[in-house]
């Protein structure tokens, strides 16, 4: 446990020593504001809710989260520090979890810094703060799921750009599998249960429930299992593919 914290601490200092964390947080805040006010019609809805804010998160995360996570392992490979890290008395699993927690904390910090949105809706009306909290939980979990996928792709290569592109594609698949325009198209030629099965793999399907304020254990379990599976794959990749 102590090693995990040590590694997470180092990763966090790494994020803030380089501009990665700042760039991510600032761009996330600007874009999430822009999309919810200008494109999402925050005021035009006339509702005291953050629906127009959360609705954009799957798409914002699609590009921003891989940008945060792409250095996680590929940078270690490029610098050769992976050799240092894995010959320390720590298990690969501790290193994987420590690194993951640190980058997840960056995502969490970005989410926390959107608190002016929350203040705004509370100032303008009487929103259901339970729904908003569920939305934040959902968004946090979704960020973690994307991040774990990025951890996996970044363990495969020493090239951050490759890690970024592959994880964007994988995450895009997770979005599109449940994105209404795509599911509507699938319905026309596949059986409904197939469409539903595919959609159940999507972050959209599971994020929607949380965004509406329903803290369904199945949705939470979905995100946690994506994280668990991706991190497990990461450990397999790190173990079998250390040098090079």
């Amino acid at each position, binding site marked *: 446990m102590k090693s995990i914290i*040590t590694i997470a601490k180092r990763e966090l200092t790494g994020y803030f020593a380089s501009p990665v964390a700042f760039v991510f947080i600032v761009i996330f805040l600007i874009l999430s504001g822009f999309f919810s006010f200008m494109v999402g019609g925050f005021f035009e809805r006339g509702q005291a809710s953050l629906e127009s804010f959360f609705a954009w998160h799957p798409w914002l995360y699609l590009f921003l989260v891989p940008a945060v996570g792409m250095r996680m392992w590929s940078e270690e490979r490029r610098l050769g520090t992976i050799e240092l890290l*894995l*010959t320390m008395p720590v298990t690969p699993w501790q290193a994987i979890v420590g690194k993951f927690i640190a980058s997840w904390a960056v995502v969490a910090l970005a989410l926390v810094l959107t608190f002016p949105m929350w203040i705004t809706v509370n100032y303008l009306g009487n929103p259901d703060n339970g729904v908003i909290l569920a939305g934040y939980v959902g968004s946090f979990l979704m960020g973690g799921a994307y991040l774990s996928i990025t951890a996996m792709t970044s363990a495969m290569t020493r090239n951050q750009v490759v890690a970024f592109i592959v994880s964007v594609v994988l995450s895009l698949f997770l979005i599109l599998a449940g994105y209404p325009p795509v599911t509507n198209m699938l319905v026309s030629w596949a059986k409904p249960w197939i469409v539903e099965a595919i959609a159940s793999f999507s972050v959209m399907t599971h994020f929607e429930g949380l965004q509406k304020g329903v803290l369904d254990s199945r949705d939470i379990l979905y995100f946690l299992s994506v994280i668990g599976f991706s991190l497990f794959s990461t450990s397999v990749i790190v173990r079998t593919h250390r040098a090079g």
Partner: protein
Amino acid sequence: MIQVRNLKKTFGPKVAVSGISFEVKKGEVLGFLGPNGAGKSTTMRMVTGFIPPTDGEAIIGGFNIVENPIEAKRLMGYLPENAPSYADMTVLGFLNFAAELRGLSGAAQKSAVGRAVEMCFLENVLHQSVETLSKGYRHRTCFAQSIIHDPEVLILDEPTDGLDPNQKHEVRTLIRKMGETKAIIFSTHILEEVEAVCSRAIIIDRGTIVANGTPAELKCRSVSAGAISLRIASGNAREIASKLDGISSVDRTTIVSESPVAIRVFPRKNVSNNDFARALSEAAFKEQWPLLELHTEEGRLDEVFRNITLPDTKASNK
């Protein structure tokens, strides 16, 4: 402290290391020699647990590196090739990170970091970030990391690579000093380093050990080992050489230079060095050659190294 038995590593069809065994005891400094790509780094990576061996085992202080990796790694300090370190950290931050991962905290951590900083002469750059440092400092930062927990086993992959002559000297002195109480393996291309630091040396070529012994033993395998060089102020080199050839204990002579006369004389087998030197000096006295110098060649490590590894490299290039 370190026992390596029949260690093998293959990458697909390519055999990097094919069955290496050796042992390093406490108080020994083992030098790893070999041409590039001979399998030195791969062997070290297997011993430190970075890559799993295809076959064979490495045991560090009683712990198998594959079965009990954490316990084995705890006993070990490792300086990987090219001395990697986190570019975005300060030297102090990096050393603290290493110390914490080694399970040190509080006052123990502080004194361990202070000791490593002192031993590696890093006081001036403590608060600089690693990426702004020169190669020598970066190297020493990584070296400091490897000795931070005062390990019993130290594995150093080219510890003097990229250092200037003064720094090289400092690092060698450090290794020799630490070698009195630890088991150390280090690899190098620099042969004089082996003579200066190692208590034993292993030459590796194409994944196998081709020589194993103390530097002095290895030097004895040199062609020139045991030969006696003569320097004579004046005279005809050929005449002198033919007279020397007439001595019963002389096997052959080579003329190194004609003027001033320098001749290397090789003894026959089973002639002791003392008898041989005496025979030569008596001949010089009898013939009244103006002898300037007479000394026995110890043999040269680079000669041994070339003789052992060169034919193989040539063959593999074909």
